């Protein structure tokens, strides 16, 4: 498509505007995080790093950031291990109700998060695990699991099963075939899904609001509470940190996925 006709040129201009609409609004938090003023007001004044200093030294912010990191890493691990196994089982297994099960394991994507959040809250109260790191990891794993399953299933579709048959026919046992052939082939997809699981947990707020307590809180929970009470520019610094980590994780995930095509 060469932009020769006015219609095509117009279409491209419109799409450029939509691209700006997608990207630009979020970026205002970055200049705001460097303001010298004490109010979260546009335009930012001067250049000051003290809000980042607060973020890293104030125990409330620092602990929340570290907790987010901890929960995100554990979620990535549990969701990737369980999700990869589930995807393999559903793609390769031969049992009745396989298609239905395949749809049901994805249902956490379509059930409103508010509903998942209150249900999880009720169950966690019964189990006495509100405000525990393990509880938060379990709750976030529920949300991340379907994404891992989709991602790993897609990478299983795109690889040639004859490679496995070749390995098996050359005498490799099932376990050897899996670890020497199957796993290396789907590794980029698995790595990408681990990063997606991490991002899911890192950014998650609704479930976290219900299953955290004032002591064990994640970064989004502290930001949300700040937004509702008095807001100082530390919020913008925390928001910038959230974006930064997400962009890095996304970049690595996309690179991992590209490897699979070449």
């Amino acid at each position, binding site marked *: 498509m060469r932009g020769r006709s006015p219609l095509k040129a117009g279409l491209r201009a419109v799409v450029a505007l939509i691209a700006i609409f997608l990207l630009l609004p979020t970026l205002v938090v970055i200049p705001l995080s460097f303001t010298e003023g004490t109010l979260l007001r546009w335009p930012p004044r001067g250049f000051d790093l003290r809000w980042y200093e607060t973020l890293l030294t104030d125990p409330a912010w620092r602990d929340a950031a570290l907790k987010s990191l901890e929960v995100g890493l554990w979620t990535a691990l549990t969701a990737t291990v369980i999700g990869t196994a589930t995807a393999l*089982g559903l793609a*390769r297994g031969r049992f009745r109700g396989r298609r239905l*099960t395949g749809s049901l394991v994805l249902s956490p994507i379509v059930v409103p998060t*508010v509903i*998942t959040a209150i249900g999880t809250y009720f169950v966690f109260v019964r189990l006495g695990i509100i405000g525990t790191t393990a509880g938060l990891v379990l709750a976030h794993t529920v949300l991340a699991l379907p994404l891992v399953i989709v991602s790993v299933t897609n990478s299983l579709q795109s690889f040639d099963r004859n490679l496995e048959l070749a390995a098996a026919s050359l005498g490799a046992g099932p376990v050897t075939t899996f670890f020497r052939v199957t796993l290396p082939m789907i590794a980029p997809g698995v790595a990408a899904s681990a990063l997606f699981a991490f991002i899911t947990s890192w950014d998650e707020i609704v479930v976290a609001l219900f299953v955290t307590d004032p002591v064990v809180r994640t970064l989004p929970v502290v*930001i949300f509470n700040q937004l509702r009470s008095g807001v100082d520019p530390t919020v913008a610094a925390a928001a910038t940190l959230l974006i930064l980590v997400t962009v890095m994780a996304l970049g690595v995930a996309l690179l991992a996925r590209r490897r699979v095509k070449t």
Partner: protein
Amino acid sequence: MTVRRIRGWGLLAVPGILFLLVLFGWPLADMAILSLTEPSPANYSVFTESPVYLDAYVTTFIVAVVTTGACLLLGYPYAYVMHMGGRRPALVLGFFVLLPFWSSILVRTFAWSVWLQDSGIVNATLMGAGIIDEPLPLIRNALGTTIGMTHVLLPFMVLSLYAGMRRIDPDLARAALSLGASPLTAFRRVFLPLSMAGVYAGSLIVFVISLGFYLTPAVLGDPGRPLVGQLIVEQVNGQLELGVGSALGVVLLVATLAVIWAGTRLVDLRTVMGYDE
């Protein structure tokens, strides 16, 4: 030579299924039970006692319809150019979609409050230019919620549309052109109908997510006219009315499942979630 084929692959799915049964199935069941027993099924009568609840469902429905429409309007040309524009535009536009798709909804909503506040970027700019004297009411109302939700959900729409368009055989539009159709006719008669699967999929996912949205309405919406998601959180977290909150949740869940069921008459749910098989 015998090829040892691995049997019992299905067993690998067992831990995941059990995990979801306990940590997803049980919570939903617990909510349904609480709605009937905490203290009684009379929880559901809140709908007849106060107009607030029914009103919230109606407002939520309207906001979801408008948001879906806005996402479709913005998302279709975007996905179309991404699909037809060649390699580099596809990469750049794809990046511009994936970045917000994976960025924190909280951060994006917070950023919108910086734009839309009475003293925010939009109003300050317009007042500074002397175009308006009073700030426009862009926040704490359904408009603010809809703008924020459209921004948050647009990537979902674009990715669904793009996935749908990629399944279209490019030779079909070329055939129409070579048979003498104008580019516009070829688009309208061939490409557009074939892209409807993506349109249905994208609309379904955006509409369903809109129905249960909590965060964006809580930050950008009218506290006096909450949407369903806010009402549920308020009942459970604020009023500690677990039964009423659960009843509202069950009604939302049933409504969501009904929409999905109706939607899957038009489109396979697996394609909605990018689950190629």
